């Protein structure tokens, strides 16, 4: 199976970290349902152009977190995820993305006031589309 994971060569994070964050996101975000068979280590390594060592590390970490299960001889599957974990993840991911945007703004030498102003403008524009979002 093909997984929508993209490696960004320009990001400073190591490859295994990039893959792990995205795969965790696919599971906690519900895009990968409980019981889904994941690609074999070698298959994912070839498709992402990374080494089997990296993929094995990612699978081991996610297995330790209880997000995936490996059954000897049959493969690696997505485990059940509790609703609470999913909700926490949602907020964490949103905060991470915002942090990235703030990093970009700081690199452009924006002041905190300018960044906040820009954020409020974005929220205002979005709320016009979605109606329900309060600013």
């Amino acid at each position: 199976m093909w997984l929508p994971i993209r490696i960004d060569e320009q990001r400073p994070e190591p490859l295994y970290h990039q893959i792990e964050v995205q795969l965790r996101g696919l599971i906690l975000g519900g895009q990968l349902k409980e019981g889904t068979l994941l690609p074999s280590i070698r298959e994912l390594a070839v498709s992402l152009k990374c080494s089997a060592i990296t993929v094995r590390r990612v699978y081991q970490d996610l297995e330790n977190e209880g997000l995936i299960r490996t059954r000897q001889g049959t493969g690696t599957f997505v485990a059940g995820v509790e609703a609470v974990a999913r909700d926490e993840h949602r907020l964490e991911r949103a905060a991470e993305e915002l942090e990235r945007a703030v990093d970009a703004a700081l690199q452009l030498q924006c002041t905190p006031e300018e960044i906040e102003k820009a954020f409020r403008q974005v929220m205002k524009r979005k709320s016009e589309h979605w109606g329900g979002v309060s600013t």
Partner: protein
Amino acid sequence: MTATGMDYSVSLRGVKLEHERFSLGPIECGIPRGMVTAIVGPNGSGKSTLFRALLGLEPISAGQIEVLGTRLNGNRDESYKNKIGFLAENPHMHDNPFTADEKAKFASHWYPGWDWERYRKLLRHFDVEGGIKLSKMSKGMRRKAELAIAMAHDPELLMLDEPSSGLDPFAWKTMIEELQRYMEPGDRTLVLATHIMDEIKRLADYILFIYRGRVLGLYEKDQLLDDWRTIVVQSDYAQKGGMELLQRTPGFQGLAEAGPGLYRLEVNDPEQGEAYCEENGFQVLAVQRMELEDILSCLIRKEEARR
């Protein structure tokens, strides 16, 4: 298992080999079992000689080679060769009069693990007609036929010397698929010598750099690509001694002036390197991963400086 906890299919300890025009070694390295190792180096580095040595075809003048648990020196037991699949860089002239199927028939007598079903499947997937004479095949077609023969006994160790030479992009993709399938059980070892960077990126777990008959290092591929970065920095003022200052960057590997006050710095410890540059008054404009070929040139430059 060795003391380092790594399990090797092939190990070379202080191996030296002398030719009239070429000497190899001393080589000290191990090829990890269950993994894909790419041997990378400029033409004439000794890649093909190394393969021949592992097949017991080159007499070594010093050291110890062990392949699949068998010591090669002075050993008359050649049964370890049954567990190896090998694709040479160039086709053998003496195979020319035979069809692919005829060559396969010879091979089937030699290898106890030979599997005709596997051979036919490989030919089908590679889209090769086994009844054609090898000499009448196009270069790419013959390559595919020879690869099918090298893989048909499901060897424990598969050694491929520039496997993709002559293959079109479709055949190349099929080859990658077949090599991925070959590695699937997890206990097979693949060693390939190649110049194709995309092949290395898709398949390799480890990279063995060699140059002028010497090993420059065995690296875990992703670790190497994570660690080695180019940092582009600028100094705000016409700073004297900027080069000298940058040469002391942690993990320093290389440096070039890219313009007035603009430098391209190569490091293998990017976090420390970036921090160092900033502390010393340089503005960091970009941090980029390095391509494998650039890492190799860097290692070669250092080796040349050491000689």
